């Protein structure tokens, strides 16, 4: 009985493993076949699109090479005058709605479209198809997160900001964020940035905040830089919500603002000087002022360096680096003091900043002589790197 049980179990496992093995082998062939099918599908889309633009040679590379001159706004308009081509376009639109419901068809279609994006005619074509993509957006709203993510990706490519409001599309995309994966959320955010709707971006952030969803601040701040509308207007809108959102989101906004040319110094100085501002935010504000120099702030930063070097090393580390953007005798004096800091990183940044503010050679030598052993070491090393010509 026991032997039978063991045999039975091992036969069972063996059967499952063989099934897995055959699945793998079959999948390799399926993948190869699928790749061929996808290529055929892409070819059909190429032909169809080329037909719309009255291409004579619609095959593969020829389409790629030839579509550009004929994809002009004028060519597209001519072909969509009432008549045969207009009828063809209607058929095409119907096919879009029918075929692109299937993810494989959407992948094939997108592989063709990605090659054509950016030309005037294609923008007009996509504009004409907007209603169809709205229809598809609703369709994909009922799909699993993976497919929703892909559709959002497609929209981010097809509908960049052109001054046209796309309220319906952004509302549908915002709904994609329900029960979404991090990839789906990221693609939806990218689509919203591309569409250039500040209100929608704000709503998306509100959604993330209200559900306590983590989205990397780095992804958000870099993503915001791809926003196609008025970045400063967006920054001000998002900044106005800072008190309602979690620390991580606000940090993303500060990092985004830091990369812009916009002047937020008044707002940031106020926040920096508040006692209850979090450490991460303080770092971000100081980095902003390292990049966007405000001479009036120099005294404050120098005072902070002196104050924090004793109490909060991490802030002193950032300030000692930021002071490199604020040359002057008082800065040099503060940095010279920081060279004697207990913190290795403060010393290192102070040495780098002393060089950045362009201290004359003789003055630098005096600072070197006046420093302790650790200060000398770091100053020597930083000086070597300055003259590194490699």
């Amino acid at each position: 009985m026991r032997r039978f049980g063991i045999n039975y179990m091992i036969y069972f496992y063996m059967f499952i493993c063989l099934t897995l093995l055959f699945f793998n082998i079959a999948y390799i062939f399926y993948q190869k076949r699928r790749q061929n099918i996808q290529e055929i599908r892409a070819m059909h889309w190429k032909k169809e699109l080329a037909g719309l633009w009255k291409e004579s040679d619609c095959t593969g590379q020829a389409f790629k090479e030839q579509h550009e001159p004929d994809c002009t706004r004028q060519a597209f308009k001519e072909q969509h005058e009432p008549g045969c081509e207009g009828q063809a376009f209607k058929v095409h639109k119907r096919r879009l709605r029918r075929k692109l419901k299937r993810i494989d068809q959407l992948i094939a279609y997108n592989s063709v479209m990605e090659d054509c994006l950016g030309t005037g005619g294609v923008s007009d074509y996509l504009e004409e198809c907007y209603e169809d993509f709205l229809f598809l957006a609703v369709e994909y709203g009922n799909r699993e997160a993976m497919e929703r993510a892909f559709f959002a990706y497609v929209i981010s490519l097809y509908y960049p900001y052109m001054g046209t409001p796309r309220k319906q599309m952004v509302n549908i995309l915002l709904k994609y964020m329900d029960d979404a994966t991090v990839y789906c959320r990221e693609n939806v955010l990218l689509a919203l940035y591309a569409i250039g709707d500040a209100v929608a971006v704000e709503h998306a952030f509100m959604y993330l905040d209200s559900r306590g969803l983590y989205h990397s601040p780095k992804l958000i701040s870099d993503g915001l830089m791809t926003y196609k509308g008025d970045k400063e207007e967006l920054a001000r809108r998002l900044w106005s919500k800072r008190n309602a959102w979690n620390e991580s989101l606000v940090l993303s906004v500060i990092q985004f603002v830091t990369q812009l040319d916009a002047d937020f110094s008044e707002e940031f100085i106020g926040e920096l000087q508040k006692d209850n501002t979090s450490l991460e935010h303080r770092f971000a504000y100081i980095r902003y002022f390292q990049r966007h120099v405000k001479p009036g702030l120099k005294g404050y930063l120098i005072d902070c360096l002196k104050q924090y070097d004793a109490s909060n090393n991490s802030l002193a580390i950032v300030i000692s680096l930021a002071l490199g953007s604020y040359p002057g005798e008082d800065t040099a004096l503060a940095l010279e003091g920081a060279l004697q800091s207990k913190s290795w990183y403060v010393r290192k940044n102070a040495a780098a900043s002393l060089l950045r503010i362009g201290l004359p050679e003789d003055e630098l030598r005096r600072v070197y002589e006046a420093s302790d052993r650790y200060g000398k070491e770091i100053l020597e090393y930083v000086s070597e790197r300055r003259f590194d010509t490699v």
Partner: protein
Amino acid sequence: MEQFVTCFFTGVGVFFLAYLLLYASYLFASVAVGAFQLYKLEKMSQIKNELKHEFYFPVSILVPAYNEEVTIIESVESLLNLKYKLYEIIVIDDGSADRTTELMVEHFQMKKVSRPIRRVVECEMQEAVYECRAENIKITLIRKKNGGKGDALNMGINASEYPYFLCMDADSMLQDDSIERIVRPVMEDDNVVAVGGLIRVAQCVVMENGEIAGYHLPWNILLSMQAMEYDRSFLASRILLDSFNGNLIISGAFGLFKKEVVVAVGGYDRHTLGEDMELVVKLHAFCRNNQMGYTIRYEPSAICWSQVPSSFKDLKSQRRRWHLGLFQCMWKYRHLCLNSRYGLLGTISYMYYLLYELCSPAIEIFGLFTILLAVLLGRLNVGFMLKLYLLYTAYGAVLTMTAFFQRIYSQNVKISVGDIVKACVMCVAENVFFRLVLDFIRSTAFFGYRKRKLVWGKIKRTKLEEGDANKDSSVL
């Protein structure tokens, strides 16, 4: 007496059947979960479900090197071909007796600098520091007194400038997208403190500018069998353990760590042979003891091609070290064993490594001893034993084959029909012979333990030549 013998054999029989069944179930679960996960990952990648980003965050790559004059230049050159935007390379020459430092300085025209290095984790003093820039990437070479791999990595941590560091071996090569892929889990989840990548056998691949130019199984049987073994172990157990944050090992050949947390636990242990495993278990223990939200991830799409021993002597040296390292780590963290505070980590992960990795040679020797005893006492059912052995071997071979083909399809690697046949033969050979060889090595690992418990042993390195991998015309 007769009753005692009967009880003994019944007990041994039940123990072994339970032991094998548990192992078979574990292997099956891990291959099935692994296959499913890879299938899902591949699908996600096809439909842009990934965090493709222009720039992630800066990473310090630490390359400890001890007598690596044969491979070091090629390794660093391969690191310069990565697609990643911002990283630095830190090579730590751990007191090599060969020309590792000289070759590096000559080849990259490095300049000696008087760089002070802050020791946030313990390590031997540096003797000299060299720096240069190549392809706009900062390369630092630190020559230090010999202190072991853990010590060298600690020096690298001390010298690194960025918040995340990636450790790798000097004889390994990364694919051009490896760093990009290994950092993605960190972008997905802020609680990720470490990510392990997939290690594959470098002797099987031909790389050109960080991309796979060809893949073939070498004629050296030892290499081919190790290729099979790596594929199975990295597909099987790692993905399953990853599903409940239970991985106890991130290979020292390729792993990404959050520096802040590693510094908080004191860096690498300098007095163990398994510093990579020790660090990961230490991170688990530290984060759980401090009730920190944390995850240690395994990213199968981040690939590192690492040289494996090509001779029995080298293999013996490597596996002895691994086994002793495993023992040292399991002993040091024995409080994890079945401890409810550590959840599945203390039960499934720890018990798996204890029963099926550390104790398996002893258990298998005990099994062989029992068989001999049974033969002597005329109590052996030879038919049943052979049948079970054959079934089990076939089962192991099928699993290895599954893992191998899984890798082929998930990475779109093209291999020749000849290699497919060779792979099938090797899957069987690996289960019939290689397993026994490894058992022998692991059984003898403890000989002379007191004297040689910190001795790494030497492994001969070979220069990886570029060439054409796709010599066979018929490819799948």
